């Protein structure tokens, strides 16, 4: 498991506890465990925006497929946009979550090197967004709710992506999802990179895992452009206000889904359970609304975003 700089002390304590246990030194074990508890509390209650970004990008963080495997008790994978290809940066499943028929569409970064390349590191091409839309429209036809799992550095910037209309594909998703006639819920599970994330995120309820991020541009890109200095990533992260907590305070997301104490990468099971509970709870609330009201609420939510002076 990869260890982040601010996790180092916690890891050291855990190792010392193992050693003390081997030595059968019970008093030492107890002292160290107390210290460990305090250290975890201290570290995770005072994370900086940059540390949260590191957690959001943690190599061991659960991906869409990990979550899907844990929340869907029955499932079949669906493929392709019916026009050009099956973009593997987007995964889609039909099946059941907690007994409810549902469709789940997620961005998948891939786990090992081969898988990452196959999935283009989770950066979709236009055919990926069109695959997502095709399957969302199918869900609409059969009145199935849709859960979107967002986890991408952004839509892929490449020649083919431009030739096939990356802009149009994202724009079309925003347009169509804004009035999709079924309850829709999105959860940012890791990185929510710009338009490439928003293309799966025009929904009735938009939530973020506690240590995920959602931003208009990567802090690296922002640092390079606005500061003219690649090393100003920490400053850019802070200025952009991209953490779940900051965005909730600004009123730009609906909910925060809690993570296990030391982050989602330490406990997939609990993370997935929290997402599942959130989905089922929100689905209950949204399903109770007449369709007209559901769509009107979604419409008004998006029309209200923005801060300006003057009437």
């Amino acid at each position: 498991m990869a260890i982040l700089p601010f996790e180092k002390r916690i890891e050291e304590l855990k190792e010392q506890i193992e050693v003390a246990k081997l030595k059968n030194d019970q008093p030492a074990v107890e002292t160290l465990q107390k210290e460990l508890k305090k250290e975890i509390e201290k570290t995770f209650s005072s994370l900086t925006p940059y540390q949260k970004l590191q957690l959001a990008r943690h190599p061991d963080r659960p991906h869409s497929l990990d979550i899907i495997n844990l929340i869907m008790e029955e499932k079949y994978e669906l493929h392709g946009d019916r026009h050009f290809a099956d973009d593997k940066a987007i995964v889609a499943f039909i099946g059941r979550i907690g007994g409810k028929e549902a469709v789940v569409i997620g961005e998948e970064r891939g786990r090992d090197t081969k898988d990452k390349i196959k999935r283009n590191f989770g950066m979709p091409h236009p055919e990926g967004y069109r695959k997502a839309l095709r399957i969302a429209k199918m869900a609409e036809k059969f009145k199935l709710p849709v859960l979107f799992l967002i986890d991408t550095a952004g839509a892929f910037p490449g020649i083919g992506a431009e030739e096939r209309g990356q802009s149009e594909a994202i724009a079309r998703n925003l347009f169509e999802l804004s009035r999709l006639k079924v309850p829709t819920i999105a959860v940012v599970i890791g990185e929510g990179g710009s338009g490439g994330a928003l293309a799966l995120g025009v929904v009735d309820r938009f939530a973020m895992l506690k240590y995920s991020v959602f931003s208009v541009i990567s802090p690296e890109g922002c640092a390079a452009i606005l500061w003219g200095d690649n090393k100003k990533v920490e400053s850019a992260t802070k200025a952009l206000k991209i953490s779940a907590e900051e965005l909730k305070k600004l009123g730009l997301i609906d909910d925060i889904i809690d993570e296990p104490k030391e982050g989602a990468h330490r406990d997939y099971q609990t993370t997935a359970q929290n997402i599942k509970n959130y989905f089922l709870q929100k689905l209950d609330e949204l399903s109770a609304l007449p369709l007209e009201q559901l769509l009107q609420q979604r419409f008004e939510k998006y029309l209200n975003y923005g801060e300006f002076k003057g009437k």
Partner: protein
Amino acid sequence: MGFTDFLKRFKKPQPKKQEPSSWIKCPACGAISFYKEVQKEFNTCPKCNYHFRIDAEERIKMLIDEGSFKEYDKELEPKDPLNFVDKKSYKKRIEEGYKKTGRKSAVISGEGRINGIPIQIVVFDFKFMGGSLGSVEGEKIVRAINRAIKKEQGLLIVSASGGARMQESTFSLLQMAKTASALASLAEHRLPYISLLTDPTYGGVSASFAFLGDIIIGEPGAMIGFAGPRVIKQTIGAELPEGFQRSEFLLKHGLIDMVVNRKELKKTISDLFAYLLKLPRNTPAHREGNSTDDSSPKG
């Protein structure tokens, strides 16, 4: 998505207003022409048809019947909700943009007639913070859409933008969803939206309302795309093909309906609105401004 990085690279000379007698050199073919002559040709190069960038006021003058334009929502100003400071503060950048353009927003929006047809129009001005999309710009677009619905008119948006405004971060990102939602409502009312893409149109603007037009028109040679060329080059580590991301390239790849010379834009757009709105040629609204020729509709 605020791909303003390439803006510096693609900074192009604009004909200077204050020196009507001066010469101007075309950055495409190198020809030196009288500014007056360039201006007469709608700010294009008389030798090679290179289209100089023009600001929002000139664009409105060129497209909207004289004396018919009424601006709306001019009083909307950015709020700086994040107190954003990079090398400069956002507030300072707004002031600088104001000095350059006399406005605190990257768009002018309002109502006017195009060859007699009343429409709602939104025009981006690249000179104000690279035409970036912030809360004010998004709100102005939504209000123009609402007026179009109320008055049963068509909508024209002229884009010229580097993308989302980073200084408004997620507020700016969500303007993409906001404008797209409003356009979905316009579409439900079956009112036409024509999107004119000019140099440059990128990022959050191109990936939202700019590519949602019922008809999408590009100006010759305009750079249009999702990601900026430099970002793409860095990502793929290879050279970009000749003409990549220009209007003509997008036309070839089926992404826009037509590439139209600036001098033909007004007639083309007004004709298209007339077809989409089924306005008979003899209605007073259409006739009054369309006296220049009596050619029958094409197509």
